């Protein structure tokens, strides 16, 4: 018996323009729980997708040795056959099918294509007992909570005789009790000889159950810590996760900050789909004239939800709280009113919510402020073209002309079109949600320069980002969010990667 069930050697994976993984090495011991940690975008999920065959053999370089043999998985089915099971952050269950049907989906208990339902439910029952889920196997997935759904996913993996179980942020959407159940289940499975790879942001969980920890940063393995032979502490791990040097990636900027122009008080928002689930909990924030305020936090901490609920209730239910602009309370019932009151929101998802990809640069730029270039509802084409040309030059949008479809532009240039659209509405408060996501370093620098320029023009900027260096590089003040709450407010001086991470960790502890 080999000591290591899995060895991934020198894995390199390229995406157009980005090196997602750079010579990554990972060794997982048989029967261990191995944690994989790193910041958002460090490459954890990509690595697991390589392992499970989602990125097929040939699209990456390096070798995967599993159970002593080299494996070239062409698809997920291939990896499943050898006993590798992956459970994604977004669950892959079908809501309107029963638990039993989901467990054996794609792996049906059948003879000559006829499904044996009795056998299916009998086997499901056994598996549900194993994972500690007390539900009837005929219950539909949509009628059980997320925590239980996770257990169904694990049961599904067990049904395929899984030997190596990969879990991507399994507890991100779970409450305390469900998380503990899940972690205990992993320990039980370990007794049965099942190896697990656990991806998580929650350091306390990782320290509790894992035997080894591999830290990934910027697509490279930094180090692997083993229980027992090294001194493992949260501080040690955080340092490993964030410790990178900062060079001149940000334009220098001297802020000219005025008085408070925008305030949100006691803001509470409920999930539009899940009854009684608070997404934003009593948030109080303010922004000054000419100030760039960062919102830091992990994925799912509620930053986007906060921004969209403020922006004319574009998200959420039962919204309560006050919005105060220039000392006066304003009520924003819809997006149009928010725009008319000087708000702008640049979405984190420019392709699906920011641009009309099948239309040209010109129509996209004018879309949110057509009234400005029209008389009696008739659009003045010539004015529109002039406006588009002006922004194309000002923001340096690289394109053949303003008549080029936005769908054919690069990410950075698409983002500039979205920014143009919102700058054209002449907002006083600009909310930027992950404005540099998925764009290259050069374009990032340009976007930072634009943001600085807007602040200098007296606009107030709310800057949401999951990249800590970026937050530290350009923000004048930072709010830290976690689980729908503001858990820290740091001045530029106080803010550092460690201090922000500590705010998040501390609030996680307090919840416990």
């Amino acid at each position, binding site marked *: 018996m080999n000591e290591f069930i899995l060895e991934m050697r020198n894995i390199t994976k390229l995406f157009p323009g980005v090196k997602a993984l750079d010579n990554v090495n990972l060794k997982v011991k048989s029967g261990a729980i191995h944690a994989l940690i790193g910041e958002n975008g460090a490459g954890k999920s990509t690595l697991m997708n390589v392992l499970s065959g989602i990125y097929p053999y040939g699209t990456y370089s390096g070798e995967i040795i599993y159970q002593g043999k080299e494996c070239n998985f062409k698809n997920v089915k291939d990896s499943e056959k050898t006993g590798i099971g992956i459970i994604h952050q977004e669950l892959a269950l079908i809501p309107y099918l029963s638990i039993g049907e989901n467990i054996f989906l794609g792996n049906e208990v059948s003879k000559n294509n006829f499904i044996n339902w009795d056998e299916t439910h009998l086997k499901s029952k056994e598996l549900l007992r194993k994972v500690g889920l007390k539900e009837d196997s005929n219950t539909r997935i949509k009628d059980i909570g997320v925590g239980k759904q996770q257990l169904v996913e694990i049961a599904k993996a067990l049904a395929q005789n899984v030997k190596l179980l990969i879990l991507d942020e399994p507890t991100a959407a779970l409450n305390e009790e469900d998380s503990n159940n899940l972690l205990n289940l992993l320990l039980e499975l370990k007794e049965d000889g099942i190896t697990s790879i656990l991806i998580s942001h929650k350091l306390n969980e990782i320290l509790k159950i894992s035997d080894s920890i591999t830290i990934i940063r910027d697509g490279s393995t930094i180090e692997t810590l083993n229980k027992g032979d090294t001194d493992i502490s949260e501080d040690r791990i955080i340092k490993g996760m964030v410790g990178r040097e900062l060079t001149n990636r940000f334009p220098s900027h001297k802020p000219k900050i005025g008085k408070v122009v925008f305030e949100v008080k006691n803001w509470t928002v409920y999930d539009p789909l899940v009854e009684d689930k608070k997404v934003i909990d009593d948030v109080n924030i303010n922004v000054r004239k000419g100030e760039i305020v960062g919102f830091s936090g992990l994925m799912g901490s509620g930053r986007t939800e906060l921004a969209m609920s403020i922006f004319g209730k574009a998200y959420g239910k039962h919204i309560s709280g006050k919005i105060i602009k220039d000392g006066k309370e304003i009520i924003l019932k819809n997006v149009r009113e928010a*725009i008319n009151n000087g708000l702008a929101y640049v979405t984190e998802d420019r392709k699906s919510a920011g641009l*009309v990809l099948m239309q040209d640069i010109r129509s996209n730029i004018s879309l*949110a402020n057509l009234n400005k270039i029209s008389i009696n*509802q008739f*659009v003045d084409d010539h004015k529109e073209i002039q406006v588009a040309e002006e922004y194309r030059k000002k923001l340096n949008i690289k394109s053949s002309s303003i008549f080029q479809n936005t769908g054919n532009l690069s990410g950075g240039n698409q983002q500039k079109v979205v920014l143009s659209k919102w700058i054209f509405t002449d907002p006083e408060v600009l909310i930027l949600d992950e404005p540099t996501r998925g764009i290259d370093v050069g374009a990032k620098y340009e976007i930072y320069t634009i943001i600085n320029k807007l602040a200098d023009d007296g606009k107030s900027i709310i800057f949401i980002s999951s990249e800590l260096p970026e937050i530290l590089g350009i923000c004048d003040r930072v709010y830290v969010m976690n689980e729908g709450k503001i858990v820290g407010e740091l001045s530029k001086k106080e803010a550092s990667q460690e201090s922000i991470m500590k705010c998040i960790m501390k609030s996680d502890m307090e919840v416990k």
Partner: protein
Amino acid sequence: MDVIKNLFKKNIRQYAMLIALVVIMIFFQIATKGILLVPMNVTNLILQNGYVFILAIGMTLTILTGGNIDLSVGSLCALIGAIAGTLIITMHMNIVLAIVLCLLLALVIGVWQGFWIAYIRIPAFIVTLAGMLLFRGLTVTMLKGLTLAPFPEGFQRISSGFIPDIFNGFGTSLNFTAIIVGVIISVLYVVIQLKNRVKRQKSGFIVSSITFFIIQIVIIVFVINLFFYWLAAYKGIPIALVFIGTLIVVYTIFTTRTVPGRYLYAMGGNEKAAKLSGINTNKVLFFTYVNMAVLAAVAGIMFASRINSASPQAGLNFELDAIGACFIGGASAYGGIGTIPGAIIGALVMGVLNNGMSILGVGSDWQMSIKGLVLLTAVAFDVISKMKSKS
């Protein structure tokens, strides 16, 4: 030359359909030994297919919002015809008043369907399928399964009347009013094109080469005048054509030049982005369906006037002709792409096929099959050409 190539490439879809239309026309012109483009038949072609033009205009708007279609328009045409028949033939109501009542009722029906589609968000396919059954049922009930006829002459004139010749043809058999209208429209067209060109040049934008510009104008002016000459050689300008022409112009301007028109395209292109840009997409969707119902009423009145009766079988499959016209004319089944002129070209393709095959004596069974194949070919061409441009 490159400019022409580029322009051609960019608008290949529209030009392709235009070329297809011309090819189909030449084919039938030869096959029917010249009957297709006899002045009388040209007028007939317009009057016969008047309802397709009007319905295709409304349908273009609904398809733009996101590939939504309206299946109820055929039944709605029949229902409005039945109501017009009951009011005018049975109750002897004033024709104008009756028409106004019909249009108002269509507005209410549009509000009804628009409410379910836009605010409750039941898929348009389902709401209008229900409407299709509901309105057909109401039509048959109202007419007790019988046909009401004939309409008084004033009502018939909507589809059979012509603008009288104020010049009396100067002693010839030609209708000079039609010829003069053709000339006026040509002049207006040239003036508007020139004005736009000069304005764009002044603002420093690239315009097409002067040769290309002149060729384009000459062709279009020629077609306009040829068309009006044909009309003049028969009985002049049909009154129905005045309605149809006005609707085409108004809706073309609406979709290309106005703010609400832009909202239609933005919503169909990406509803999420449109919403986040402050567009009330529910309202846009709602008014699209109200508009469709009113246009369906206009088509219904025109059709009742043409067949000079209110029949429970009126308007069968009209919705399919209209939807087909839009897709042949380049509308995207996913929304956000499509034009009124495109839909009109599509309607003409449908119309010429209908008319040409009828002259040739092709049975209605084969006519249907051939129209089905033409629709599939047109959309397949669209999808395949997009695949090519992507790779």
